[in-house]
């Protein structure tokens, strides 16, 4: 059965034989490395484990998340070390959701030469160049949604000849969208007002004063909406 098959991988130049069922991250551990960097959530959410590899005989350099990708035979691996990304420092309360804001904090987005390297590298299969395009034009809501699944692994930024830190541009667009473009939530604002006015205090205090048996009875007979 293929489950038992071993493949050769090269980690930082050294050759190791590992089962072909492992992820890249597991193969490094199998080879004896205790990971200190390049390892976070192990579920594809945190973007900590961006890894560069090349398969022998193939010139293309590939970048993936080590926790989400299986090993291949003759894979030459190296992990991206900490990669510094530029981040604008701002007070969200004093911003406007416009292209000018993007231009102020991330002017380099206008230096994009359309090479599409960012998109080709994206570990989440996002159209990165497209969302930078939206940001350039001030279409922030589109940028926010197109960049929403970003895990900030930084692969895009490592490849950008214009020096764009794409994931931070997306983040600014999303925060501006969340705060200024998405509609305010009337029911939330009302409930918060009620809480500050103490409207719910007595009901809560009454429940806090109940015995376990009284609570059980209320709980087991509570009405549950569909």
């Amino acid at each position, binding site marked *: 059965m293929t489950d038992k098959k071993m493949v050769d991988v090269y980690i930082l130049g050294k050759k190791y034989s590992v089962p072909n069922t492992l992820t890249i991250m597991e193969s490094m551990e199998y080879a004896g490395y*205790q990971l200190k960097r390049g390892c*976070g959530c192990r579920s594809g*959410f*945190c973007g900590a484990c961006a890894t560069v590899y090349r398969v022998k005989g193939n010139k293309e350099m590939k970048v993936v998340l080590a926790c989400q990708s299986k090993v291949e035979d003759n894979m030459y691996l190296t992990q991206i070390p900490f990669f510094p990304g530029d981040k604008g420092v701002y007070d969200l309360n004093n911003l406007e959701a416009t292209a000018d804001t993007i231009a102020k904090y991330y002017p380099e987005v206008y230096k994009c030469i359309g090479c599409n390297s960012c998109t080709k590298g994206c570990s989440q299969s996002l159209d990165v160049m497209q969302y930078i395009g939206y940001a350039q034009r001030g279409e922030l809501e589109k940028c926010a949604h197109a960049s929403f699944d970003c895990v900030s692994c930084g692969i895009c930024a490592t490849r950008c000849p214009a020096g764009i830190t794409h994931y931070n541009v997306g983040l600014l667009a*999303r925060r501006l969208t969340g705060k200024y473009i998405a509609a305010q939530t009337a029911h939330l604002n009302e*409930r918060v007002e009620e809480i500050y006015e103490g409207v719910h205090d007595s009901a809560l205090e009454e429940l806090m004063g109940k015995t376990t048996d009284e609570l059980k009875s209320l709980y087991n007979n509570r009405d549950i909406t569909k």
Partner: protein
Amino acid sequence: MYTPEMRELIKKVEETRSQRIAKGDFPRMTAEEKTEVLEENHPDYIESGFVELKVGPNKGEKVPNELGELLQGKSRIEELKIDLNKVDYEADVLIIGGGGSGAAAALEAHKAGSKVIIATKLRFGDANTMMAEGGIQAADKPDDSPALHYLDVMGGGHYSNVPELAAALVKDAPVAIKWLDDLGVMFDKEKDGTMVTTHGGGTSRRRMHAAADYSGAEIMRVLRDEVQNKEIEVLEFSPAVELIMDTEGKVAGAVLFNIETEEYHVARAKTVIIATGGAGRLHYQGFPTSNHYGATADGLVLGYRVGAKLAFADTIQYHPTGVAYPAQIFGALVTEKVRSLGATPLNIHGEQFVYHLETRDVEASAIIRECNIKGKGIPTPNGGQGVWLDTPLIEILNGPGTIEKRVPAMMRMYQKFGIDMRKEPILIYPTLHYQNGGLLIDENGATSIENLYVAGEAAGGIHGRNRLMGNSLLDIIVFGRRAGKSAGNLSKKVELKDLTLNHVEEFHSMLAEADLVTNSVSPMLLPNYTNKGK
């Protein structure tokens, strides 16, 4: 990706689907049935999995074996001469841990005018918060109320929760959502601003707010960005290995460890907030875990050594739906939202055996029973077993495109391994997910040890013996903010005396008196998976 045997079994799931839909919801368990399935199957009831503590504030109480080993382990600084007069970092509020609760605490402490330092083991934001998928509860819809939320929290926790903590949680919940909304967190909303909310296991109202299935990631990246905007100092790859006290017995900082250079540094602080998260990577009873790489209960060890009491340390949450197959993502979380949207668990015959939205402990126990006692699990090639989660049902019930829109991360995870959850059911089994207990706090996040606060998963008492979905993302915000504000204000009045690590020696003496000879050094910091599978 599925084996031919599995493909045959999937046909049974498809055969029974129309009948299951026609029948409507599977009946919920009665209170008695719940007790029965829990006592028979839940890992918390397996006595051999627990050890009695011989020293410390919880002496005589039981904790999981793996945790007991660390709580009664030796300090990393036992043999070291640490010069406490050479202070490397100075703060009003030192926050240990850079997840959601640490970041929320940092923002409030900063707002209170304190000098804040965050010290974190991995990168800032590498935490269970980042991985929380399903959502965050808050009673802000017109048909809901904090009181209804409170009743759900208490019932879910088997009435063991500290009432004041549960009340603080539900009362601050809408305020927490508003705070996040104002920070620009992109919650799922209708065009008119109405929050899109769903049920979670054990909720009586639809009060689960989400940002697709990136809820925790969305919250974490916004909080991290805001901490960076406030230019708060963050020390990455610098876990705390011991708390520092002053000569009056107040907590006064921590010894930090540079994970790469292996140097130790002294951080002096007027108040300390432990925000180190959970313990999944201790793999209690051999379970896989949905947790972050750094979830090794470090904060519990640090707090316990200075005499802070643990609450509910013997109760662990096993998430009913962890990945049982494929092996590469074994133990990873399948968000409860998948069940919220209508996916139901099925046995090898394609039969449903439990209502799909029981509380997590009951749902997990029912799945364990189906596999281990009834023998109706589906065997996996890696030697384990699981049950089906009928995910194609989601699109039948809610329309095509629902999975891509509402659980994109989940869909992507399975697609990477050749499974399309829109068309095929997925195989799941419970996974170690959450530390229900932790260091006991009050409503402000304070412990009984002066100047020591705890927030997030390391805190105990809020959820009692079982936590409901969506109340963890909520508690990190509510109690993170409360701890940050309180520690920030307190720090203005604190005057520290000389620093000391005498409590470490005293703890070692207690271990020796109790004849606890161990080679375990704690905190663990990182799990060791080298040569795994050989």
